[in-house]
């Protein structure tokens, strides 16, 4: 597309993005279009309300959490780079990538994806999912019919099953361990359109 190149030139540091995230330039152009569509006031940054304008997120039980995940602590806006970086977590893993210990962990590796998922739970970023945080998530994901007691029982049992060092919280390692049988790549990937 002829417009690809013109759009590409508008985006600063495209090569860096491509390197870091593994998206192709065509992907990045498409994401940039999306970014601009969301950024109605053309400020070059996205704010929570811009995400909030996406209707379908309102009917997603963890929609608001996902929105929050885009914003790093202390920041009120998301620029395009951060936008793409977060989305890059959801790229399907590159099967043929050689394991190179000197290179930093790619964004869409299993560990990075798990870290992203972990952060959704761990809102206060202390590296552990406490019982209260787990309760919050459970509450939002379960139907209204479920009572408080049932919720708490579920939370307790979940922590029991996953918690290995009995500190009544789930650390990242425990989280990862409890999901070792799950095919994370499948479950956390979407095919990005060109």
């Amino acid at each position, binding site marked *: 597309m002829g417009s690809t190149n013109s759009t590409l030139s508008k985006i600063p540091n495209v090569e860096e993005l491509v390197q870091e995230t593994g998206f192709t330039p065509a992907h990045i152009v498409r994401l940039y279009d999306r970014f601009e569509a969301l950024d109605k006031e053309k400020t070059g940054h996205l704010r929570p*309300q811009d995400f909030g304008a996406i209707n379908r*997120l309102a009917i997603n039980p963890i929609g*608001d959490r*996902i929105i*929050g995940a885009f914003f790093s602590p202390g920041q*009120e806006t998301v620029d395009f780079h951060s936008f793409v970086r977060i989305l890059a977590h959801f790229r399907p893993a590159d099967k043929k990538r050689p394991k190179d210990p000197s290179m930093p962990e790619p964004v869409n590796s299993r560990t990075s994806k798990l870290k992203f998922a972990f952060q959704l739970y761990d809102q206060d970023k202390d590296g552990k999912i406490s019982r209260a945080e787990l309760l919050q998530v459970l509450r939002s*994901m379960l139907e*209204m019919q479920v009572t408080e007691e049932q919720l708490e029982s579920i939370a307790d049992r979940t922590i029991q099953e996953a918690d290995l060092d009995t500190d009544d919280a789930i650390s990242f390692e425990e989280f990862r361990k409890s999901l070792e049988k799950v095919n994370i790549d499948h479950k956390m990937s979407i095919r990005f359109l060109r």
Partner: protein
Amino acid sequence: MPAMWHSTFILVMVLLAISRPSLASQARTEESQGTGNATEHTITTLPIVIWKWEEIHFPYLVALWVLVSWLCKLVFQQNPCLTSVIPESGLLICIGWVLGGIIYGADKVQTFRLQPFTFFFYLLPQIVLDAGYSMPNKLFFGNLGAILVYAVIGTCWNAATLGLALWGCWLGGAMGDIDTGLLQLLLFGSLIAAVDPVAVIAVFEEVHVNEVLYILVFGESLLNDGVTVVLFNVFNAFVSLGGAQIDAVEIIKGIISFFVVAVGGSLVGVVFALLITLLTRCTKNIQIIEPGFIFVLGYLSYLTAEMLSLSAILSCTFCGVCCQKYINANMDERSVSTVRYTMKVFANGSETIIFVFLGISAIDPSIWVWNTAFILLTLLFIFVFRFIGVFLLTWILNQYRLVPLDFIDQVVMGYGGLRGAVAYGLVLLLDENTYKEKKLMVSTTFIVVYFTVMLQGITMKPLVTWLKVKRAAVAERTLAEKLQNRTFDHMLVAIEDISGQIGDNYMRDKWNNFEEKWLYWLLMTPFARKSCDPIFNIFHKLNIKDATSYVKEGERRGSLAFVRNESKADVDFNKKFDADFSEMMPYIMTENMGPDHVPVSSIFVPSVCLDMHEQDLKMRESEDFDAHHVLQQHLYKGRKQHRHRYSQKHLEVSKDEHEVQEIFQRTMRSRLESFKSAKMGVAPPKISKHLKKDQPQKMPNGKSTENSKSHAYGDEDVEFSEGDSASGCEAAGSSFPMRAYRGAGIVNPAFMVDSSTVAPSQRAQLRLPWTPSNLRRLAPLRLSTHSNDSFLLADSPATQEGISEPPPPPPPQDGQGRGTHK
């Protein structure tokens, strides 16, 4: 006991009913032979009553047979344990046998058989139309590639392998001495290879497999008609031409005819869909016969394709598939209900008649020719080659699919290749002189149909259960896994929405844009256009729910007059809803167009949630608690996991809507909560500065703004002014531009507030910008206390206060949906 008497009574009625026409037809044939030409009798005296059987016997018989077939259905529905074991279709066939036996016994010849013409032109079209109309489109088009692969390549494979295998066996002498040839066997293979939609519907209806699997088998059964028709005609022509005349040209012509027939048939269907849609655009004044158009045009699409020797089933299917969305939007709700129910009646009725007659037609010794080898080999090969075909094709497809089909699904798919009445109809169309072994083929077809429908039908459910059980027992998932899996689903959906990727289909994205830009404008009435948004539908439903409970409450109190009497329309509903929001009926507005370019209406968070707390009470009583079970049952299903909606028998509103409403209410509530708590936490005593000034501004024209970006509404208690950044809130500039509603002017011209849509309740008193909750930053929020209900407007135009009591204390920090305050 009473059930048994019911059944016997009905059976007796049925027997009487059929014996009468049978005897009557006998009498008729005798009479016509006896009287010869003299059909008119000279009368000698005025007859008071005449026996008019000859004139009306045809419609009478038709009506009677329809009645009898449907009564059969009634008979075995009395006995639910029977229906849970044997699929309904099987039971109908059995009753057909009984009836056929009775008729044969009475007449010594099978007077009633399923004629191909009747089947193809009077019984099949409505089933196909119903299938198309009720098809879950997203699922269908999402998997269209796989469906086409199975339908086209799979059917060709089945036909070819079956024909060749039978030919090989015939050459080998296994079948004895039958007069057939390669081409005839290939023809036979092609007509028996096709998976039958009627049978698939009938059997899969009762076995609830997952949606993707269902749509693959079902879609295949519909789309393979294109292939079947072509193969049938091609081989029929080849047999007539004789083996010698077949050369490359003919074969190429055959291949071309496939494309023409299949694509042509689909195009005819699409054209008719277009006609229907355009028609429904104009039928606002004749709503009473609006539903009729759908049926007539649907039937015409079938007939037109048939007339042009294209694939009629494909035409009818695509007609239904393409028009459903638009006509559902265009037509009045009652018309839509009428269409749905009537289609189901016709489709279900036809299916019943087909199966009963399949049973009856078999009881006729004159058509049976038995050749054990042929029949058994056919059965065997059908089975084996079906499985091989499915496994092969799935293996190829899995390389390209994002979510591969696993082994269990493949087994079920292979096992679900049911043959049915279409094969029977086709085999009866064969010319007896060309096909010396027609009777053998007919017999084999019968046996195959019975085998698949009854045996495979009966064993399908146990098979599915057994396979699943085995699979689940192998890996019992932990709670964390279950929860996390569901979280992943929701996550993916959210990321797809954020990044604007809709599923993984580039074409679908393009199509959606095209559709919104052109088709909506062309095909839908203006009103329908804006209600297309799914979120709007949710609001609409929530509003209706709220309104109905409102009315109920009013009736409970005696009349709705209470609405006008109270100065603040603060009814007891509050108690049921979270006390925090006792007075707030926020209208949460977004901009006209969401980023997805869909017109978005205002959001109306209902204040009455009657179902929540009552259920709480019920739940507390149950003591036995199983965390796994509760989690399994009550996790919200994400968008990807909708239950499949196509069912021939049930027309319920799917539970998804309920779930979606719950989630939506909760999200809005938590956003409000966090907004409120931010408000509370920051500056309670700050009194609005702009209160009086703003209101008059808002009244006439909602567009007036103080600054370019936001509207300021007065709030009695708190207002975040421009410079307020107590909790790190951003300046006013970042709040959503707000549009006043109704009385204050309507901004979005595309969205005209009809009274039939979102009805502003009297209790609407606040307007809030729509901000996500659980964020670390809150945009400044401005509240309006201006009620825009007509009652209040009429009574007190300057009512400033909506919140007449001090705002309730901040909701307790119970960790519900709040991670913002540290």
